[in-house]
């Protein structure tokens, strides 16, 4: 399971990097989303996986070997933050498109040089 | 006996979802496909939920199951309606 997830993380990173190298801003943002999902999975995987019981405090009090819940809490926070950032970048892109009418990263030369 | 009933319900639920999926592939135009997906899917989920509520056999689950069934039978036709309406309007424009 860990190996499968590791391969998935690698695939997501490579897809994200590929999308980052495109010229369109929207694809750039999608690439960022891919990479942030891959990173979230990486943090999630950092505690290892123990299949079986989900980590919830229920009525049963017997101590079973559970996955470390802290990375899951961290990932939850990271997902929330990532959500906010992605929404903001989309709004930024929308405004940029409305004012300039272009979606091409190579057109962004006004503030350089 | 109980578990057998549950598994049969679950099996038939999945069968109906599969039927919806086959219908989605086989039918010729969008509206016919929508017929397949709305009816068969919601019925399949209904059977699955019935199986679940028999399996867990508790009030807590049963209340949720009734809620979900109501919700699905409330929303599935509306979703179909919204897709169909947007398709219809688009056809009118062309």
């Amino acid at each position, binding site marked *: 399971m860990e190996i499968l997830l590791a391969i998935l993380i690698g695939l997501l990173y490579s897809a994200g990097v590929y999308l980052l190298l495109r010229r369109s801003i929207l694809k750039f943002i999608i690439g960022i989303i891919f990479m942030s999902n891959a990173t979230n999975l990486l943090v999630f995987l950092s505690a290892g996986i123990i299949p079986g019981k989900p980590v919830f405090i229920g009525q049963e009090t017997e101590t079973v070997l559970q996955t470390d819940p802290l990375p899951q809490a961290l990932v939850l926070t990271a997902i929330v933050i990532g959500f906010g950032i992605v929404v903001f970048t989309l709004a930024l892109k929308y405004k940029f498109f409305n004012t300039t009418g272009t979606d091409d990263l190579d057109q962004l030369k006004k503030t350089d040089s | 006996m109980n578990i057998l009933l549950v598994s049969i319900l679950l099996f038939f639920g999945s069968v109906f979802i599969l039927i919806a999926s086959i*219908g989605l592939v086989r039918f010729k*135009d969008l509206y*016919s496909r929508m017929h397949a997906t709305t009816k068969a899917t919601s019925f399949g989920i209904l059977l699955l939920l019935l199986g679940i509520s028999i399996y867990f056999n508790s009030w807590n689950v049963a209340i949720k199951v009734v809620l979900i069934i109501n919700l699905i039978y409330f929303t599935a*036709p509306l979703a179909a309606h919204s897709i169909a309406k947007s398709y219809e309007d688009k056809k009118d424009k062309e």
Partner: protein
Amino acid sequence: MKILSIPYKLLTFLLYYLFKVIQSNIYIAYDILTPKMHTNPGYVWVPIRINSKFGLLFLSNLISMTPGTLSIDYSEKKNALLVHYLYDSKEHIVLTDIERIQNKIIALFK
């Protein structure tokens, strides 16, 4: 007496709904699983007699769940629902079918 009759009406209506749902599923399953297609789709405008808005919502949902029909659009001008039907039946069969459902809903909301 009136208070007692509402649950009775609701119960019969629900049973009717359930019956319709099962019937429509059997129809569609038969149609999909047999190799030959029996479908021959078309449209029809169905006039509406229900006044209440909730009744309209109910009717449109129910039409979508009954065998072979799918409500597509509602036109305020005509006060009618555009219904898509799947089978090669005459239009008036669809119309009478929907008329029966409408009567039931009107009786329910009285």
